[in-house]
């Protein structure tokens, strides 16, 4: 396959994706499950890719994802809630004077949300990044919890509305907004990962000491990866806030970090396409396909055992444990989806079949 065919194939794939999206938008009623599940999957895929950047590509095991998403979501909400709805939102504590007349357009809000998360990452990055593997994990986890407690605390009542949370957050203008934002962000991440910086990140993952010996500045590259990852985490948080319309500190629990971590594990640590595929797969399974597990069922008079509220999550976590234990590569491992890979896969499949049925089988496959 030459470069041109691959490029055309990619364009066709994107066009098919966009076409499907338009089709779903037009053909389904606005209350259809698939619409919101698709949006949620897109948001999760950005969150997962941004976490994967740090955990899978740079080898820094961070558990602070939910914290950065919370920062992004709150920043977005604080700056974009329309001035007219501020009195109803802050009915109990009143709004901070400086913010009373501030209402950015959502597009600016998203960027500010990302920048805020990145700024915070820059501040805590310098000390936290000195820590090694699991200490780093637990420190970022602690940081996420601090963020969660602080946004709900009374000190910030007039900004974050304390434990009441924020509502009246502007939603997506059009159905396609989240997809476009996520697409742009992931495209930037892909470019970044293919640049010299991306290669340096991967070198750090493979062997810190060797990377340092090759002239990579460990501290600054780790810092860069941490900040970039948080920037996109902040954006995914902002999208989440737009999607939900209302947020409280409990929207971003530790469980959210675990969810995203498990998505990237299923997709493959260190694979952007893997994370995207896994986000869609996991979100669809969790929010839609496996819903039936939460409802009691009867086949004739037979009461299907085990099915009741909560069973879905149990099944889901068991699947995850199986993946972690027996299939730790995940869907893609550290590889990316490529046309060559797909082509090779089909050729292998075809060769196998030909071996099995040497007479006539080959011709039928051509």
């Amino acid at each position, binding site marked *: 396959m030459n470069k041109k065919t691959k490029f055309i194939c990619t364009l066709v794939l994107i066009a098919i994706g966009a076409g499907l999206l338009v089709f779903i938008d037009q053909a389904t009623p606005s209350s259809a499950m698939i619409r919101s599940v698709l949006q949620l999957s897109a948001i999760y895929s950005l969150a997962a890719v941004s976490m994967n950047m740090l955990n899978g590509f740079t080898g820094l095991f961070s558990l602070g994802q939910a914290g950065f998403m919370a920062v992004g979501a709150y920043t977005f909400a604080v700056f974009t809630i329309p001035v007219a709805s501020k009195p109803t939102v802050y009915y109990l504590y009143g709004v901070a004077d400086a913010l009373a007349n501030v209402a950015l357009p959502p597009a600016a809000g998203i960027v500010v949300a990302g920048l805020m998360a990145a700024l915070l990452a820059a501040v805590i990055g310098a000390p936290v990044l000195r820590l090694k593997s699991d200490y780093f994990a637990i420190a970022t986890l602690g*940081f996420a919890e601090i963020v969660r407690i602080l946004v709900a605390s009374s000190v910030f009542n007039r900004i974050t509305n304390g434990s009441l949370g924020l509502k009246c957050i502007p939603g997506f203008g059009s159905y396609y907004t989240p997809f476009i934002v996520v697409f742009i962000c992931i495209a930037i991440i892909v470019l970044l990962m293919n640049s010299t910086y991306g290669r340096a990140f991967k070198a750090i993952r493979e062997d810190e000491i060797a990377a340092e010996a090759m002239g990579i500045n460990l501290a600054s590259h780790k810092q860069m990866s941490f900040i970039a990852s948080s920037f996109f985490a902040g954006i995914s948080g902002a999208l989440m806030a737009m999607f939900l319309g209302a947020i409280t500190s409990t929207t971003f629990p530790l469980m959210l970090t675990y969810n995203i971590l498990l998505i990237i594990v299923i997709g493959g640590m260190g694979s952007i396409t893997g994370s995207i595929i896994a986000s869609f797969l996991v979100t669809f399974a969790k929010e839609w396909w496996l819903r039936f597990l939460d409802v009691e069922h009867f086949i004739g008079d037979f009461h299907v055992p085990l099915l009741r509220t909560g069973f879905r999550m149990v099944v889901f976590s068991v699947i995850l444990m199986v993946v972690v*234990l027996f299939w730790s590569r995940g869907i893609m491992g550290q590889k990316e989806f490529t046309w060559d890979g797909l082509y090779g896969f089909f050729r292998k499949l075809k060769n196998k079949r030909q071996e099995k049925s040497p007479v006539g089988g080959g011709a039928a496959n051509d």
Partner: protein
Amino acid sequence: MTLTAFFQYCLVGISIGGIYALIAIGYTMVYGILRLINFAHGDIFMMAAYFMIFAMVDFMIPWYISMIIMIVSTIVLGVVIEKLAYKPLRNAPRMSIMISAIGVSYLLQNLATYLFSALPKQYPQIPILNKTITIGEVSTSIATFITPIITIVFVVLLMMLIKYTKVGMAMRAVSKDFETAQLMGIQINNVITVTFIIGCFLAAVGSMLYFTPRPSVFPLAGSLPGLKCFIAAVFGGIGSIPGAVLGGLIIGICETFIKAFGYSEFSDVFTFVLLIAVLMIKPTGLFGEKMAEKV
């Protein structure tokens, strides 16, 4: 603050600190041997509370037998988790085993939500532990009073176990050097099992003392105490048992006094800030050994 109130808070702080210490020992021992943050430990602690509810409320078993059932089932749970989720990954990269631990924690929380529903359940009243006693002007429940004593007794027993028995010697050897210990003929799997048994036993005892004075149990009840106890273990120097005890006590007392001064919403922030501060200033903790970086 009057002197009476001061003593009252001290007692409460030492008591909660003692419980943290019991759980922190579980973290610190597992980390010392497997180099694994056992994220599921807090959830094992939560499951222990549900076992107690199950035995006492649903089966109406008297508390002293329930207690034994609860401790045994908690230990079984912990050992089964180790065999199923951690043992297959013994030679895998450290990140995989940590992810596995997170997966177990996730599974236990979801399982508890499924089995016992997300609604808070009342922890059964254990008559002996709930009696109020008054010493001078300080009045408190027996549970609060005996917790520090129980903690001290168990810690002393554990230290003796580690110092004077064969299995204790094996544990020390394994925590010093996993591979060499194996070469010296130590049955590593048995040592790890014993570690998990001790950790779960202490978590079960801690769970009973922790939930008795508290109103209710819910599936996420173990996650925050679990994190705090891990912080206690890090603060004291991970791998060190006296360190875990001291860390637990300091966190418990500080937390109680922060609450007493009316900043209860910041008591958890304090714990996490303490964690980050300790990691910045002295990552090996109070009593931790300096570990040489292997190249």
